[in-house]
């Protein structure tokens, strides 16, 4: 095996060799994910209960503010309780927000690795995208319990859930590849993320129903992938609406573009990560 090390300039594409190398290091990814999970709740009293608290507390707040004070209940137009309505959206949303946030900061937080050892750098932002799935699974289980308690039965559309999970992971990863590579050189990104995440949430139909968007604009709105994810979750779990395939399709287009450009940008920047930290 001969390794050639040369200066690198301009765009760098993701080649078959790069993919093979990534596969070679799959055990490292496995270890990093395991480490993130086992370290996260160490020395906490409530442990994994924190994975449930976050969306649950948000749901209680939203139910109080938007369900009672603003009376969003009347706007959602069905008899689904606002608590169920918002929690169904908060489960995928919380995953997206947490994964995006920790993946964006992942390069900054893991400098001690890539300034000391060589390995495919992309493993670092990929790790939280996978490890946060555990929190998601726990919150999802609570969601199922809640649906059961309210006597709501998901319909057959639940079989499409894995597709929605894939879409939400792709979106989070595509954005994180861009943002983590930017953040390592420009720390402004961390500041920007604080309100950007909030902006993204209000832009998604988390607290408000999709009926507020006129039918004709739904497809265009669907280019924001989380809109399709959230509406898809509601369609399959609450089962009172049809799967919004137009929005999900548009979402996949955006997510694919984000992934491809994200990989390109990340690959062309990774050679200077160790120099600019």
């Amino acid at each position, binding site marked *: *095996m001969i390794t050639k*090390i040369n200066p690198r300039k301009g765009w760098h594409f993701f080649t078959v060799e790069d993919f093979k190398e990534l596969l070679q290091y799959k055990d490292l990814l496995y270890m990093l994910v395991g480490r993130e999970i086992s370290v996260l709740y160490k020395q906490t009293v409530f442990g994994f209960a924190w994975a449930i608290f976050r969306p649950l507390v948000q749901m209680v707040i939203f139910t109080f503010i938007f369900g009672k004070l603003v009376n969003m209940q009347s706007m959602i137009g069905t008899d689904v309780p606002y608590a169920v309505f918002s929690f169904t959206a908060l489960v995928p949303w919380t995953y997206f927000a947490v994964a995006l946030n920790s993946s964006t900061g992942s390069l900054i937080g893991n400098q001690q690795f890539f*300034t000391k050892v*060589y390995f495919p750098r992309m493993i670092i932002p990929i790790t939280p995208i996978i490890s946060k799935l555990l929190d998601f699974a726990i919150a999802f289980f609570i969601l199922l319990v809640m649906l059961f308690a309210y006597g709501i039965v998901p319909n057959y559309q639940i079989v499409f859930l894995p597709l929605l999970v894939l879409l939400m992971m792709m979106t989070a990863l595509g954005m994180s590849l861009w943002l983590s590579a930017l953040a390592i*050189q*420009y720390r402004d990104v961390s500041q920007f993320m604080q309100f950007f995440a909030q902006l993204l949430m209000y832009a998604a139909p988390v607290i408000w129903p999709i009926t507020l968007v006129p039918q004709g604009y739904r497809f265009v709105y669907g280019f924001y992938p989380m809109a399709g994810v959230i509406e898809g979750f509601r369609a399959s779990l609450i089962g009172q609406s049809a799967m919004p395939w137009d929005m999900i399709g548009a979402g996949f287009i955006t997510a694919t573009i984000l992934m491809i450009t994200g990989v390109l940008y990340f690959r062309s920047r990774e050679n200077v990560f160790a*120099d600019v930290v």
Partner: protein
Amino acid sequence: MSETYIKVDHLSKLYRLGVAEAMHDSLGAAIGAALKAPFKNFRKLQGLSDFKDKDDESVLWALRDVSFEVREGEVLGVVGKNGAGKSTLLKLLSRISLPSSGSIEISGRVVSLLEVGTGFHKELSGRENIYMNGTILGMTRKEIDRKFDEIVAFSGVERFIDTPVKRYSSGMQVRLAFSVAAHLEPEIMIIDEVLAVGDADFQKRCLGKMKDVSQQGRTVLFVSHNMQAVQSLCTRCIMMENGRLVMDGGTDEVINYYLSKQMTGGSMRVYETPTDAPGNQQIRLQRAIVYKNSSTPSDGQLLYVNDELVFEFAFWNYSPGVHANLSLVLNTVKGEVIFNVVTDDKPIGEGLHVARFQIPANLLNDNVYSIDLYFIKNLKETICLIENAVSFEVHDAPREKAWYGKWIGAIRPKLHITFEQESRL
């Protein structure tokens, strides 16, 4: 002739240094600068990775046109002062950073130990960390499974293997980390200062392991400030200075050259004309010299921990009838004060005065030192301060036992310790 393992060809690396911010003397200028700051900051941050204007004062050539080859089975020592470019070279060889120009060709798997214990997480147990550290260095879990027992046995931390590493002593952590790396079986091993830690016994095992590695036909690149370790391990050495490769040759030859270069202009300073000398209108230094008592003063002589050192400071006093004393402070290169000695207060006349004192053998540890001179009038007022009147390095003397670690301690006295059996069981 064996196949070339590492080929470094005209390698250069640029870094961007921080540049001092301009000061503003008016509110208007300060506000204007604040408004322009985002643009300036953007250019500055962008400049960290972009080198359009290479002659800019903020650009540093960390490596400049370095070429050399290493053959299979060779143990190459890399010596040089801090900032000479050794670490940059290793970073490029281990693919952490890419060169600005030139190329490297490596055949075989490289493992670098730039800092042992990379990937160690304090909350995880020793067992989990072996897997973590091993996979980060490029091993698969299966490979680690196979070598797990061997790794643990080599590190000697069997009893604590399921304890979080935050409860380990620093020595234990290093032992565990080195064991992982040592069992990687790479074709090429890059080692940076790992011998600075760990106890004598463990160091002996490490050196043994490295010798094994090289005898199995594998290549080792070894960076250390410890010349004895370099001497005992390396077959060939290169010396770096200001980013350039200045010497490539046999270990003894390179080490002797390196040690002699380190001493220039420090230990013997004589000022021919008073105006060039440090001091002020009242006091001027005439000479400041350190030499070993067993020889005559000469520039470039090596001082060892077991030499008795003589210090000589001569100065001109220009103020008549002054009542003064002399206070000397010995600092390490890092600025820690080792001691402060003072003379008696007495009247000194105009003219040349000389102060001499000795530091006994086996008192100072190996380090780089400097001496500050204070001239104090009437026991209260400092009339002259000469910082770094002289600087010198004390080298480690050849040791009797095979232990090459840094001898810790601010000082290194040789005390007589009795050690005998008091009673039988």
